């Protein structure tokens, strides 16, 4: 089942031969797993709800894209709102309150109290 990830394609000659050995080992293991899977009569995966996964990933990426230019406060609001979309039944009013509250709290804690090297406002 580890054949699910692209084994082997990442093989690239690097200095030293260890990466190559390891990659080929992975190819062999992937093949072995696949063979076992086929012999065992295939396999099924339970479906996974994509919505929360996508929302959480997007929230983190969104934070990454905005924090440099727009600052911590706005990036936090965006991240929390996007993440909230991942709930089965988002409660938007509550999400907005949470977003503003968390953004204010984090800005205060990390920006001012601890004085971390993180921009709080747009620049």
């Amino acid at each position: 089942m580890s054949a699910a990830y692209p084994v082997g394609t990442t093989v690239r000659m690097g200095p030293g031969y260890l990466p190559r050995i390891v990659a080929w080992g992975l190819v062999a293991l992937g093949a072995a797993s696949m063979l076992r899977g086929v012999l065992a009569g295939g396999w099924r995966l339970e479906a996974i709800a994509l919505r929360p996964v996508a929302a959480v990933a997007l929230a983190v990426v969104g934070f990454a894209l905005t924090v440099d230019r727009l600052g911590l406060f706005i990036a936090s609001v965006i991240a929390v709102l996007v993440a909230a979309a991942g709930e089965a039944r988002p409660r938007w009013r509550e999400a907005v309150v949470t977003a503003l509250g968390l953004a204010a709290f984090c800005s205060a804690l990390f920006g001012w109290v601890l004085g971390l090297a993180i921009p709080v406002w747009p620049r």
Partner: protein
Amino acid sequence: MNDVVASLGLGLAVAATASNLWYCFLGALIGTLIGVLPGIGPIATMAMLLPLTYYLPPTAALIMLAGIYYGAQYGGSTTAILMRLPGESSSVVTCLDGYAMAQRGRAGAALATAALASFFAGTVSTLLIAFASPPLTAMAQRFGPAEYFALMTLGLIAAVVFTQGPPLRAVAMIFLGLLFGFVGADVETGRDRFTFGLPELRDGIGVVVVSMGLFGIAEVMLNLAGGAAQRGERAKLSRLWLTRADLAAAWPATLRGTAIGALLGVLPGGGAMLGSFASYAVEKRISATPHRFGEGAIEGVAGPEAANNAGAQASFIPMLALGIPSNSVMAMMVGAMMIHGIAPSPNLAIARPELFWGLIASMWIGNLMLLVINLPLVGVWVRLLDVPYRVLFPAILLFCCIGIYTVNSSATEIVLVAAFGVLGLVFTRLDCPLAPFVLAFILGPLMEENLRRAMLLSRGDPTVFLTRPISLALLVCCAAAVALLLLPSFRRVRATAGAG
């Protein structure tokens, strides 16, 4: 012997300064907090707080981070007993008999047992660290690259043997982890490998990035996707006192649990969880009345609770004495040391005795504090669970993002965290264990370096691993571990431990 006592005295003096006491308390408090809350583990918390430790002296930083780890073991058992909700993976077993005791109106007794057993185990394993580290350190002084390579190989093999799940997948995860560990500029030639032209990847992928993605973000996704764990009805608190019969039953179980936990904790890839499962299995097997297990047997609480705490602390031994992190929590500790420019090595006890012994002594003080934090304040902790997850999870995400950003001010790393989050989710759904991956990821670069150096020193003669006695002994251990895996009886035990 006298040396150890004197050193412990030094450690106590360091740990008992006002500021270190405060950080110890803070760590234990935060640990309890996140131990009580499901959906956030000690690794993610340590990763989130790691950047903040820039501003602390190194000793205080390590004391606090260690406190989070063992504090989480205490906190996790509280919710396991009161609501059948394991706050941490290591307290899954405590749910079985702890919650059963609580339903019979003996919640107080179960909590007291868990706390006292943990405290006892914590005390013993603190002493174990103190006494086991110097000889190990002395031995490690004679280690050459060949020995290090053999030792790390043993670590990886042990990770396969002692984690749950199919061995084939664990091996595959190790190879994949090694591959990820190779990312970055090559140590000797400085050439980029697997960086896809991204300058951010030249230094390799950060341990914090990987663990926060795999353990923090992926967990949030899983929780949101799968719905919260089924929680039992909250049991009423009762008197905390134990009866004489309770003590008589719990005492030997605690002793056995401590021994099992400490033994399994020292092994590379070990830690808190394995010990608790093993201890429960042992208690059930040797009990004269195995049918009571699952219905509120006090041994079923005392043994595993002692084991998980002993395991948590014993896993510090390889890190402190040999400079090798044996699991992802220890990798965090190493990360914290490196932030302060301290390279983990067998020389730590000699070069920085105040840090080494201060950390060890703080563990005992921390355990004492936890006893106080936990027992009288148990009601406060349980109230925490009323915080709904939909408020909690954005906060966790946000702290993760900010934590990563403050390390290098790099937005790319935050994107990487998201990617590892998705990866972690996929692995978990495919039943591929994450622990071997992280361990291989951490050890990979070290192994490569030592392998190359060993080859260089021996002029490419691979028999060097077999002709050096320590290296040979370690490789024999590797072979023994593999043989263990092939034994049918061991496979059965392993499978039942996995099934819980």
